[in-house]
């Protein structure tokens, strides 16, 4: 509901762009905090998923395809991350957007725009705006680092769904948490511990969007889904698809790699 409200109320945001962050996609599914649940299993589950795409530090190459009623566009991007707090995404193609970079440090997001050689900051009022014209929002990116604080998670179902043995993890926002979703449900395959699908509901329990994970690949002996498809419920012919081409975990990256100076200097 909030999501919808944002879209309607703030026309501005609709057009809004600004950010590119990969991590977002990595983490979205992962953000379930385990602390509220006594079972050790959920802790392990959450931590496992958290490590899947990111490790302690990571470098990834990926492509994103956004399909809307008006246009379809594909981008290839390169991304680095360190912990949950730092990440950097650089667009490699197409030419028009080449070298546009998004830096996320904690709650702040900056963009580097090579065409005009300027760094700009994304204001907090623009957080619910679209990220790079995709169906992800800036907020998805920022909220990943606070998901554990914002939501209570628990395993609400263990058994067979669609012929696969799964764990179903349900996350509901804590009291007073400033969040967009009323409930997030994620299905994780029991055998491989790979996420299958995540459902995002608004405060009234209405399904807003579905994130689907597939094309699993073995990386460091873990099964990692390489394709993420985000499908908004109210626009069945639109979608955003992210495909990881390469993920390298635990590469050495210094913290000052994620700095404004570096953002501008790199280009």
């Amino acid at each position, binding site marked *: 509901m909030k999501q919808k409200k944002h879209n309607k109320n703030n*026309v501005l945001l609709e057009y809004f762009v600004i950010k590119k962050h990969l991590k977002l996609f990595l983490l979205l599914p992962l953000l379930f905090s385990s602390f509220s649940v006594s079972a050790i299993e959920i802790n392990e589950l959450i931590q496992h998923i958290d490590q899947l795409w990111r490790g302690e530090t990571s470098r990834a190459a990926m492509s994103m395809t956004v399909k809307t009623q008006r246009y379809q566009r594909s981008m290839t991007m390169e991304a680095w991350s360190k912990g949950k707090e730092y990440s950097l995404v650089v667009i490699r193609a197409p030419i028009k957007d080449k070298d546009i970079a998004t830096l996320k440090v904690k709650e702040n997001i900056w963009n580097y725009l090579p065409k005009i050689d300027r760094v700009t900051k994304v204001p907090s009022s623009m957080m619910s705006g679209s990220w790079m014209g995709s169906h992800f929002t800036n907020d998805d990116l920022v909220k990943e680092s606070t998901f554990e604080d914002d939501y209570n998670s628990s395993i609400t179902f263990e058994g067979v769904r669609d012929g696969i043995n799964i764990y179903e993890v349900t996350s509901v926002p804590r009291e007073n948490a400033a969040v967009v979703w009323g409930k997030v449900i994620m299905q994780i395959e029991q055998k491989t511990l790979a996420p299958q699908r995540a459902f995002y509901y608004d405060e009234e329990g209405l399904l807003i969007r579905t994130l689907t994970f597939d094309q699993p690949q073995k990386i460091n002996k873990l099964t990692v889904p390489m394709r993420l498809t985000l499908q908004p419920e109210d626009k069945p012919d639109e979608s955003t698809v992210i495909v990881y081409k390469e993920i390298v975990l635990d590469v050495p990256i210094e913290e000052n790699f994620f700095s404004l100076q570096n953002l501008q200097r790199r280009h």
Partner: protein
Amino acid sequence: MENINQTSALSRLPILIFVAWRNIWRNPVRSTLTISALASGLIMVILYASLLEGMTRQMVRFATEISTSHIQVHRQAFIDDQDLYATLPWSYINEIEKNFPDIKISPRLYAAALASSTETSTGVLIKAVDPKRETRVTKMLEHVRHGTLDLGIADTTDKGIVRYNLVIGAQLAKNINVAPGDELVLVTQAADGSIGNALYRVAAILKPLEPNFDRMGVLMSIEAYQQLMYLENGFHELAIKANDANQLIEIQTAITDKFNQLSRQQPLDKMGGQAVVRNWRQLSPAVADLLEMSKALVYIVGFIIIGLASLGMLNTMLMAVHERTHEFGILLAIGMKRRWLLLMVLLESLFLSLVSAVVGSVLGLIVNNYFEEHGIDFSKSMPDGYDWAGMVFEPIMKGYLEPIDLLYACLMMIVVTMLASLIPSWQTVRLKPAEVMR
């Protein structure tokens, strides 16, 4: 018999008028006070009507001349949620210009963007116009507070980046702290989904046009807009200035027909919806409602003021009738008809209100003249003017008196006071000569 009576009543009218006039001045102080009360009431009504009409005219002027123009055309989807893609094709412009040589048109484009710096970013609303066409339709581009209006290319930076000039709203300039000559970075999502970004030079700051534009408006040329937004196949809004504002409805109908015809010849895409032609009253219903309301308000307030003043009249006449009951009794006893007596008292009231109307109108016109020339100046306390119901008003409030309003005010006063004087007149009719003469 009837005939004789009527002629005799008519023939007695001059004498009745003479007596009534003399009766008024039997107590000059009381009559003068009554006349002053009624005249002041009338003056107030005149000034009130004049100031309200002045505001209304300013409002209409702002609504039509400064930014809205008389008629606007949009796609339905643009009206509903400012759909960036709901454009009208450029080819329509030529068609309209060819078919309606008398009207002036100006295409406009809109988009949301961020005005950015390293420290902060602010949401802005881009409005793009064709300066040549726009000046023929509205005075928007003359509304400059600081700087010089120029929407062309400003310069090229040493890295070869072309900077266009743009113009921004006064409140926005204050909020993001820029002055003419400063640089502005705009970032947005272009029509093809890419990140539109460009450098600009702030050429001028506009006086308030409307609260929204003032707070977040950025004005640029259509050329600059297309380079930022990659939206080249059409425009969002067509502003139309009619050559004769009194024929708005006819022109609107003709243009609607033309657009319907054009959309049959060159079909529009489905998602954007139909072309919708609206006049300024439909575009700013709040203003149109205010105009209607202000008329009603003049009558209501005028009625109250005059009603109060006529209580003074009522009191005067009651007193006059009361102290003359003896005299009336004698008149009746010697054969004066009751209806003549009634007529005489009514004539006295009529003279009082007529004199008041003349005095009030003359004085009211004199004061109103001052208001029309000088107005009430709030510019010291509100240099930007004030906004009300989404309209910006100049800080100088000027009056404008429609002659018809003056006539209505006088008529209303005379009618109300005459109604009030029915009560004392009726008392004279019920007098019993035998009782009152005792």
